[in-house]
């Protein structure tokens, strides 16, 4: 069974008739990487919102691991929590993801939610801080970090949940060369470890290195 299946999916914003996404079908297997390309306003972010259960198709079906993701299905708290645990989303704007007072608490937020023991939370958080090279920022307020640092913290916060699918909306936007290189390497390693990736990017090198499938919107 494919992990993600979109069957003839169309989407229009509430109250509008014009379709932003028209009859889109795609299948994504476990461990694959889908690169999504398209101009501004082509519907990339809308597609990501659908894949993350934040918006729902007006036509067609979205199946995740064989289960149809609908508003009703995600309306059940337990389903919603499990789905969001399995699908991690790095928003294009990391600012909106960082609402805790310290970087450490930001990264630890997910593991704490999962009800892990204090030792496990500490271990996961430290691992993520080290992995993303932000251990020295642990006590700083996320709001006052630079754009690149915020992106690292946001990604660390997503990865601390250990999702099976990681959706990244323009992960390279606003990053310097060094951070891009780091992030590209990290995503390659992540793919190697069997995670499923969905990435919106205009970076040809990243596409070449990671993509099993390319979707042009």
């Amino acid at each position: 069974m494919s992990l993600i299946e979109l069957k003839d999916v169309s989407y229009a914003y509430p109250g509008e008739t014009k379709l932003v996404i028209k009859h889109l079908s795609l299948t994504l297997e476990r461990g694959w990487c889908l690169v999504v390309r398209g101009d501004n306003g082509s519907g990339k972010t809308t597609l990501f919102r659908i894949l993350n259960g934040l918006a729902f198709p007006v036509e067609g079906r979205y199946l995740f691991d064989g289960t149809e993701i609908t508003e009703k299905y995600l309306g059940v708290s337990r389903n919603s929590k499990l789905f969001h645990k399995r699908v991690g989303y790095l928003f294009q704007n990391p600012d909106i993801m960082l609402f805790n007072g310290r970087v450490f608490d930001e990264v630890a937020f997910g593991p704490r939610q999962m009800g892990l023991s204090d030792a496990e939370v500490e271990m996961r958080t430290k691992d993520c801080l080290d992995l993303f090279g932000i251990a020295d920022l642990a006590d700083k307020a996320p709001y006052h970090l630079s754009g690149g640092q915020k992106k690292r913290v946001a990604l660390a916060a997503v990865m601390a949940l250990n999702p099976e699918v990681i959706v990244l909306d323009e992960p390279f936007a606003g990053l310097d060369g060094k951070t891009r290189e780091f992030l590209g390497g990290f995503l390659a390693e992540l793919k190697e470890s069997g995670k499923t990736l969905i990435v919106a990017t205009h970076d040809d090198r990243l596409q070449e290195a990671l993509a099993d499938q390319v979707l042009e919107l």
Partner: protein
Amino acid sequence: MIPEWMKNEDTYVPPGGGGTFAVRTIRAIGGAVGRLQFQQGHEKKYALPALVKLFILVAAILALSLSHHRLVMLAYTAVLLLYLCTWPPRDIGHILAGALAAAGLTLILVLPAMFLKPEGVSGNLNLVWKVFLSVVMVSIFNHTTQWNHITGALRRLHVPGIFIFTLDITLKYVVLLGRFIRDVLTAYIHRAVGRNDKKYQSVGGVMGLTFLRGTEMSREMYEAMRCRGFTDDYKGL
């Protein structure tokens, strides 16, 4: 190097219940932001100009305030409710909820006077009734007139430019900050995969973040204005 636990799948069973607070808040904010952002309401293509409507509104409120006759108030009530009957139920709900809230607040404010001077109860109740009717009228005007037409009408009435500008900017930033809060809560839900025992701490974090963002936005706007020649001396529109 990716840590070992990240290479394996978690066997996680989330707890049931909870999580409705953020969803409800997002819906409420989304609705309010949507209404403000696309505030076209019921303005029809051939509607009365906003200036005329504004005059009628001010005149109607003045006449109502000055009237002491209960029949006038009954007539106002009948006309307004009849007019509202032609509207979609959701809009009627919004208007009446706002008007009833304002009337309720007025009632609380005049309660001491009603107890201290029982013979003035009737007058105080009239006041509450007038507040209700006035708020209904203002809400109808607001629903049937686009925001830019309202500010246009105010401009034609020679209301000082700085006042209109402040009004416009306030509305714009209410929408922007509303959108920001909605997005933060959406991101919060995405990571709130269990039971949050420190919900109020998270809410405080969102509020603090919004305050910081608001401060930053106002600073950025001021700097952008200065870069375009603003010298703290506002020239009218």
